[in-house]
């Protein structure tokens, strides 16, 4: 088994635990913004897409990479935008007056 795989597995398991503990504490009030925010964070795959598209190794891989750049970047932009729009609407009673 490649050494890279083992170190990635360590990172994956630790990040999974961190995620579980952090997300467990998110108020159920904010579960919709949570989903759109994690979606925007997940769009970080755009960095891998940029590398595939920019290396321009074959026509096929470049096109696949370019589609991936557009799809994930739209998630990143749209995800942060809608999360912030939703969170701006949450006001407490004291703030409203």
């Amino acid at each position, binding site marked *: 088994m490649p050494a890279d*795989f083992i170190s*990635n*597995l360590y*990172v*994956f398991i630790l*990040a*999974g635990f961190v*995620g579980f503990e*952090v997300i*467990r504490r*998110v*108020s159920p*009030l*904010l*579960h*919709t913004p*949570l*989903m*759109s*925010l994690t*979606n*925007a*964070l*997940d*769009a*970080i*795959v755009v*960095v891998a897409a*940029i*590398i*595939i*598209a*920019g*290396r321009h*190794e*074959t026509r*096929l*891989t470049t096109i*696949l*990479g*370019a589609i*991936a750049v557009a*799809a*994930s*970047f*739209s998630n*990143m932009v*749209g*995800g*942060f*935008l*809608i999360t*912030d729009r*939703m*969170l*701006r*609407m949450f*006001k407490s009673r004291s*703030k*409203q007056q």
Partner: protein
Amino acid sequence: MTAFDLQQYLDFAYIAAVVLFILSLKFLSSPTTARMGVLCGEIGAALAVVATLFTPGLHEYRWILIPLIIGAGVGIPLGLVHMTAVPQRTALSHAFGALSAAMIGIAEYYVGTAPVTRFEMGEIALEVIIGSLTFTGSLIAAGKLQEILPQRPVVYRGQNIVSLSVLGAALALAVALVVNPGDTLLFPIMVIVALFFGILLVTPIGGADMPTVISLLNSYAGFSAALLGFVLNSKVLVVAGALDGSSGFILSLIMCKAMNRSFTNVMFGAFGQVQASAAKGKEERVVRSATAEEAASILSAANKVVIVPGYGMAVAQAQHKVRELYDVLTKKGVDVRFAIHPVAGRMPGHMNVLLAEADIPYDRLVEMDEINGDFPQTDVALIIGANDVTNPAARTDQSSPIFGMPILDVDKAHTVMVIKRSMNPGFAGIDNPLYYLNQTLMLFGDAKQFVGAIVRELAGGH
């Protein structure tokens, strides 16, 4: 030498991004700090993207910048949709995320630098299968939520056997590819079979189960990104994918618990088909109804009112009228709170967003477990567009298809008022004994108009 230095800077940028991502989710624990969380996420993502543009070996910036502009052009309108459309927007973004992960996995298979080893082939195959099925599955879910596709569960005999054999075929192709990674003909077939499985997976699932399905797809999209991190040996993808995957997984668990269902039951059960045999001998059951005027006088005499909103409220666009009702009652010194069932709305937390949009303060929105103990001391429970989540049969009637599902105990309030168009059963097609109780008053009519009429009575009256 410079290339080496650049790679180090890149790694530092990615580590900073990962730290900011975790902080971003941590700030989401409270509504007061949540927007700070978005800012952290944005800085982290921007840092990682800008750093990546300096990666050594990139020379075709056209193929990067044009897709980035297209992505922003698609993403901005998707970030500006109406709050009732957030569930389908979210399903669509799961589809985009999965598409992106699948495309990169496929490209990685065809990149000719070094032949793919068997181990790498296994990783790529698994990643591409999950990405592909999540892509089509999420598109179907988005179509159902947008009501382009039928909301009812679509079922036929032997469905589960067909679906599972398609999945089996995709996995068998993956195994064949691991045995012989060079077989470039099998790879596209495997992708097509996995895409097909995603359609079969979500098509049978009914509208009532969408909160669970959307959470599960969230989880799959996250894990496919994490697997892509394994394929590319990119820790930032592994971490972001693990965070997204575990978030979706936790939400799925919460949704399943809120509906008293198991994962397998959601995926293979086709809820809503049951069509309750609970016709229960057609004994005369009396329903009492009331006018807006009567409802207004009962509400103004109350001390404690709990409003139970359901998706029907949002469909009727009644949330702004509900906000007016909240205002006028609060001015009269009535304590008004909102009881939120975890599956109210079409995705986790959706109802909170809809009420927050109508400017109802979030400290008035109370989760089911917190408010259930207060119903015996509640004068009026006003139900607007909710049905199954208030059905006492879930507690008492073992033959009911929703038996065991945690519900809001509205039947314990002194008076129950239900705004409803007619006596037709709800989404899941289950009769609700709540409507025949002595303390229940049915308010027949459109939610928006009826709430408006109550508000006029309250404001015009005393």
